[in-house]
């Protein structure tokens, strides 16, 4: 099926009707010097057969390693039914359901998704998704500055325990708007935000404090204390959370005494495969008081003329097709298919299933840390409580050890030196419910072996 339904004859008829010679004539008013011309580095178009071959070859290059890396994307079991249902024709077009009369099924699915995300995070309202976790945080920073009308500083605190990639993306997207980002240091013993570092900002106009829970090191932050500080200081709180962990942890809507203002994060753990890094989807929830500042689509439940319940896009006056340059964001179609998968995943596993996934991941990670730290020269770097990731300190640079493990088909963790130069002898490891005792033994024996040969060398 062609994706552009107009034939050359159709196009000719339309151009003749408006008196234009070529389609390019329609763009005449754009000054020539603003047109980019051909883009460098973009290869010519290929057909479906050719692209399919390229993608298979690239996927094969990833191999089937035994994976112990998390760091923002997590390998969970995805029941076969999730993608069998998601790829049905009824769901397979991710295009935005503007037309309520033709899109009740898609709209209902998004409404169910929003309900589940609001419930998981303990907030009042959810949007229909964003691109990914990192851009969701950038959008949350922009939203905080719009919504916090008593704050004029556009100053945001980004802790060093926040995913470094998220920090980069937030600076790239929001940094052009004269925001100030201040970094908060982490405690070298616990791996948490140093709560005492907030004293430097007390009484100052700080728009928002970002808290990642569990943080990038897998450690649980003192979220109640941090939230209370922010509340007292008139600072908004943006929570970045792992949705799986919320089956066990206190939802951000209940942190501190009154909960947080905006919650966002990466939706990939909910039924989306790792697939070499994407596509994933971001989520965002908030309080009703801030709903008009929230970016993205929102689906609402309503009654039709005959009083029957139905679903429709709502609060569209915030969006770019109505509010133009003043819109809360220019995000539109985004990640519909991945949201469908997440909704079906959550529906299949249910609250009890998600709790089992979270508990099993936590237990597997505890097993992994116990096993690895029995190796001489290997210890747990941080003392703070953890969910399903941990920082493991070695007695030599992690990069070489990881390379040796990769040769044995093991992805042994993330080299933290890439983002934290002082942690270049540390690994960030993760074990989810997908890892068996045998897998953990395989990794432990390989690491012991690799370290032994490294010492001998």
């Amino acid at each position, binding site marked *: 099926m062609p994706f552009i339904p107009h034939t050359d004859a159709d196009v000719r008829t339309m151009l003749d009707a408006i008196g234009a010679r070529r389609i390019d004539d329609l763009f005449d008013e754009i000054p020539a010097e603003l047109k980019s011309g051909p883009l460098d580095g973009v290869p010519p178009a290929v057909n479906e057969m050719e692209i399919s071959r390229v993608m298979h070859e690239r996927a094969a290059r990833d191999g089937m390693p035994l994976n112990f890396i998390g760091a923002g994307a997590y390998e969970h079991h995805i029941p076969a039914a999730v993608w069998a249902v998601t790829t049905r024709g009824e769901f397979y077009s991710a295009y935005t359901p503007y037309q309520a009369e033709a899109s009740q099924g898609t709209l209902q699915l998004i409404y169910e998704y929003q309900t589940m995300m609001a419930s998981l995070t303990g907030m009042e309202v959810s949007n229909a998704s964003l691109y990914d976790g990192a851009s969701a945080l950038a959008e949350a920073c922009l939203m905080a500055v719009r919504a916090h009308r008593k704050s004029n500083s556009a100053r945001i605190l980004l802790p060093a325990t926040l995913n470094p990639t998220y920090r980069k993306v937030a600076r790239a997207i929001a940094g052009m708007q004269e925001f100030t980002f201040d970094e908060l240091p982490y405690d070298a013993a616990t791996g948490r935000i140093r709560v005492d570092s907030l004293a430097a900002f007390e009484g100052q106009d700080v728009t928002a404090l970002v808290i990642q829970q569990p943080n990038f090191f897998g450690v649980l932050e003192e979220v109640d204390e941090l939230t209370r500080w922010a509340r007292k200081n008139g600072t908004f709180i943006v929570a970045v959370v792992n949705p799986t962990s919320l089956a066990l942890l206190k939802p951000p809507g209940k942190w501190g005494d009154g909960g947080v203002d905006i919650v966002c994060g990466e939706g990939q753990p909910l039924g989306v495969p790792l697939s070499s890094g994407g596509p994933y989807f971001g989520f965002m929830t908030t309080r009703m008081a801030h709903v*008009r500042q929230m970016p993205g689509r929102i689906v609402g439940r309503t009654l039709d003329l005959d009083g029957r319940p139905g679903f429709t896009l709502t609060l569209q006056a*915030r969006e770019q097709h*109505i509010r133009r340059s*003043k819109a809360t964001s220019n995000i539109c179609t985004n990640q519909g298919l991945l949201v469908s998968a997440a909704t079906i995943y959550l529906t299949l596993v249910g609250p009890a299933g998600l709790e089992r996934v979270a508990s099993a991941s936590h237990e597997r990670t505890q097993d992994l840390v116990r096993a690895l730290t029995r190796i001489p020269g290997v210890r747990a770097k941080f003392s703070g409580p953890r969910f399903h990731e941990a920082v493991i300190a070695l007695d030599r640079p992690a990069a070489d050890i990881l390379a040796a493990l990769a040769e044995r088909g093991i992805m042994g963790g993330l080299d933290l030196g890439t983002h934290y130069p002082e942690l270049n002898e540390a690994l960030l490891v993760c074990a989810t419910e997908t890892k068996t005792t045998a897998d953990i033994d395989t990794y432990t024996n390989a690491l012991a072996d690799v370290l032994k040969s490294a010492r001998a060398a």
Partner: protein
Amino acid sequence: MSKIPSDLKYTKSHEWVRALADGSVEIGITDHAQEALGDLVFVEVPEVGRKLAAGEACAVVESVKAASDVYSPLAGEVIEGNVDLAAAPELVNQDPYGNGWLLRFKPADKSGLAKLLDAAAYGKHLETEAH
């Protein structure tokens, strides 16, 4: 024909201004503006203490079909926003020149008021816009 009270001042962007006895001014949107927008569902008024430049967007009126900015006709500092509109935005539709006022502020320079349109000039402006 929409109502245009003769004791108020107006802007071409359809705000009205009322000079109050204490030297402050009250601002709202005209009957014509509320009718063009349709039923309002949300009104955002500025924070007290906010300093506004003349022509700066100072409030948002949102109907089921559009969200529009309200522009401050004069420079000044906000002393009060109409808090009743949070629960009852329809006041702007029902009583645009009375209970549907949006904000009050202290103008930086009182002479600015004289430069705004009077009722007759605003009426003429509406007629030209209609053509």
